[in-house]
């Protein structure tokens, strides 16, 4: 019996080792692809005169769809920020998702809203619409008031009322940089097959925000927020840029993505029965367009920035990661037919297996690996030199990947101008291996369990708000 148990442990050790090698090989590969891709991107941007593009009548009109639920303290400031975007022709559709606070009143007062006629152009099923309003001060600002139905439902209402070829899905509390739209629309100009493009999310905690724009980029003071800065750099500049270079983008962040309206309507809009509606939509676009035999492309664009506030407490962070993992789990299991299926091209053969086997199932393997390790440790059956060496590889590889993400940032956008911030990013790359990574693995494991148990809902998310952050910084 004992013999059998140790045979099982041996086999499991092999599984962990193979998982580890595969996962990190993919991370390294995407990082290297990202280096080339970012260089090419910088070249393209130098050759594409943004000022000329801004005045070009060829830039397609865009509708910004901003769902708002209980955003009373920040909604007016967020909408004002959207009104200052540099783009030739855009509409703002704020969707009040049955807020229980005074969000609607604040918007009505601030923008002088009046009831206006507007016919839907699509018929995706949603909760009931209570009213359609337009601003007297800003004719391109509309507010769609509806019964509560969740973010995906609110986005679907925005899509139903969208009458431009493209729409931009975003969080009402994200801050888009002024040139974000003109930058993110580039793939739609250069490649008519483009159906979706995602921008980069950056952490606004610690930055100085004035009039809805990030004016001074700084690392946050909170350690958990600092870890997330590094994590976002790695995820977007190494991960998504690398996957884009492989033409296999499977994720577009719900906080900032732009889509061709007709393609999304044809695919049925956002799914309202998942907490990962952003990833699910992109996976479904891959699936439906491939099945229909339509040529298409989906891109990640690294410099249109949406600034977002990240959680600063472990409690909220754990709920966020739990939700992300549940979303990933639901999206991938729903479309598991794509796994290693040639019919879905690179998405099915490369990206889907990576997310399914390594990102989705990985937390199980990691968690059982830790259990096996501590079990063996307690039983005194650990080969210490081997374990130390293995952990050494894991830590040094983690550091190398993090430092490479900082290098990519420095190579491309240099958003952190202070030398001290650069040094802190390096140090965070070392520190995160001792505690933060393990916590992340645990949260993701719990997220998988929640998904298997059929847990629904987003969990309570509390935000400090940019305005307060800016005020604090200004007082310094």
């Amino acid at each position, binding site marked *: 019996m004992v013999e059998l148990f*140790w045979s099982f*442990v*041996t086999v499991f*050790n*092999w599984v962990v*080792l193979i998982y580890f090698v595969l996962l990190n090989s993919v991370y390294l590969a995407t990082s290297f692809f990202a280096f080339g891709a970012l260089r090419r991107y910088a*070249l*393209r941007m*130098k*050759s594409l*005169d943004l*000022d*000329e593009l801004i005045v*070009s*009548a*060829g*830039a*397609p009109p865009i509708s910004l769809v901003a769902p708002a639920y209980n955003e009373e303290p920040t909604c007016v400031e967020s909408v004002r920020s959207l009104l200052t975007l540099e783009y030739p022709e855009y509409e703002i559709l704020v969707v009040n998702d049955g807020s229980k606070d005074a969000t609607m009143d604040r918007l009505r007062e601030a923008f002088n809203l009046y009831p*206006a*006629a*507007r*016919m*839907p*152009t*699509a018929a995706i099923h949603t909760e009931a619409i209570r009213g359609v309003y*337009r601003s007297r001060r800003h*004719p391109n600002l509309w507010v769609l008031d509806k019964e509560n139905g969740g973010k995906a439902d609110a986005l679907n209402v925005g899509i139903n009322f969208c*009458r431009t070829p493209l729409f931009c899905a975003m969080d009402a509390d994200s801050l888009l940089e002024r040139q974000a739209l003109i930058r993110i629309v580039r793939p*739609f*100009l*250069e*490649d*008519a*097959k483009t159906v979706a493009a995602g921008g980069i999310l950056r952490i606004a905690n610690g930055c100085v925000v004035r009039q809805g724009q990030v004016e001074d980029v700084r690392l946050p003071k909170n350690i958990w927020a600092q870890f997330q800065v590094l994590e976002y750099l790695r995820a977007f500049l190494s991960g998504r840029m690398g996957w884009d270079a492989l033409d296999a983008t499977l994720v577009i962040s719900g906080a900032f993505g732009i889509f061709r309206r007709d393609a999304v309507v044809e695919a049925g809009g956002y799914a309202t029965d998942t907490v990962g509606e952003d990833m699910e939509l992109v996976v479904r676009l891959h699936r439906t367009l491939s099945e229909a035999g339509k040529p298409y492309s989906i891109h990640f664009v690294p410099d249109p920035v949406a600034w977002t506030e990240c959680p600063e407490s472990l409690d909220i962070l754990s709920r966020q990661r739990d939700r992300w993992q549940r979303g990933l789990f639901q999206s991938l299991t729903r479309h598991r037919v794509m796994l290693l299926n040639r019919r879905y091209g690179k998405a099915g053969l490369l990206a889907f297996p990576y997310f399914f086997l390594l990102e989705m199932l990985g937390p199980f393997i990691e968690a059982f690996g830790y259990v096996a390790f501590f079990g*063996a440790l307690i039983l005194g*059956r*650990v*080969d210490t*030199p*081997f374990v130390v*060496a*293995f952990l*050494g*590889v894991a830590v*040094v*590889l983690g*550091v*190398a990947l993090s*430092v*490479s993400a*900082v*290098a990519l940032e*420095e*190579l491309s956008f*240099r958003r952190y101008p202070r*030398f001290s911030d*650069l040094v802190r990013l*390096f140090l965070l790359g070392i520190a995160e291996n001792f505690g933060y990574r393990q916590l992340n693995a645990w949260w993701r494991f719990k997220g998988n369990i929640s998904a298997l148990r059929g847990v629904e809902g987003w969990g309570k998310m509390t935000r400090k708000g940019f305005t307060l952050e800016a005020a604090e910084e200004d007082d310094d």
Partner: protein
Amino acid sequence: MDVLGFPAGGAVRESMLALLIAVIGALLLLAVAFGLYTLFLRFQHERRESRWRDLESRWQEPLLLALADPETADAVHDAVDEPYRLHFVRFCLEYARRVRGEERETIKRLAGPYLEPLVERAQHRDVGVRTRAVQTLGTLGLPTYVGVLVDALDDESPLVAMVAARGLAREDQAEFAPEVLARLGRFEEWSRPFMASMLANMGPGSAPALRTALGDGERIPWVRAVAGDALWILKDLPAGDLAAKVVELEEDPALLASALRLLTVVGRPEHIDVIRVRCASPDASVRSYALRALGTLAEEDDVPRLLGALSDPSPWVAIHAARGLLEAGGELLLRDLADSDHPRAILAGQVLLEEAG
């Protein structure tokens, strides 16, 4: 404990351990290399920025003086040392993008003596170098270096070709329209409205070449549709008959939609018959533009057709029909509709609201 099934103390275990240690060493080197590279990039960037600021401060004042009084151009040239000539060209390029007309011409004259090395760079094996050279010559070097840009339209890199096309397709450079249009098929991947906008940017002088492209049955429908879109932006009245002919004879939906849209701004009463036929097209975009064009030319008999199209299953067709109805003088009909319980009552209200601004 046996590690991965290999006996403790065995040769395989020892080899694996050695391998792991070697991997740690290699990864450590990689991490250090990335770190050093990052620091190198930071210092290099700061040095470049500092040097660029120095150069800018040296050139800015004489350049502004030269823009106010071109006679002072010599003072600018005196400030350009030989090693920094291409930097000066870059400086001029950035300024030239922000100005137009006479000011841009002055900057072009200032940069002119330093552009010759870019001709060779436009042939460089590195795509980045070629792109920058072609872009710079397109902004500062025309008409002197037009040959370089025309050659670049056939560059193997689509990016270089597009940069050349954009360089040639500038305001009041209609003489280059035939060259760009001849290669338009290369850019089929690009967005059609974007390409049309680029061509229309050349101004009314490009219209004859655009008309030729629209009417040329040998060209692919995409190119003809782009030409039609550009003529629509230019509101080119002489293109009316040609557009009507396209509407009458062609079947490609994108081309038909483009020609019909052109007829919404340049159509004449004699075109109305071909437009009416397309109001029943199975393609929604063709129906939409046909109804819109019909609205601009409609006779009394056409009002019921427009009214009926409000109930089209496609909301887009209905929107165009409502706008067409408004243009055909059906405002009162729309008002009645907006006050009724007609399924398109909201649409009628919406179009009236749009009209009111």
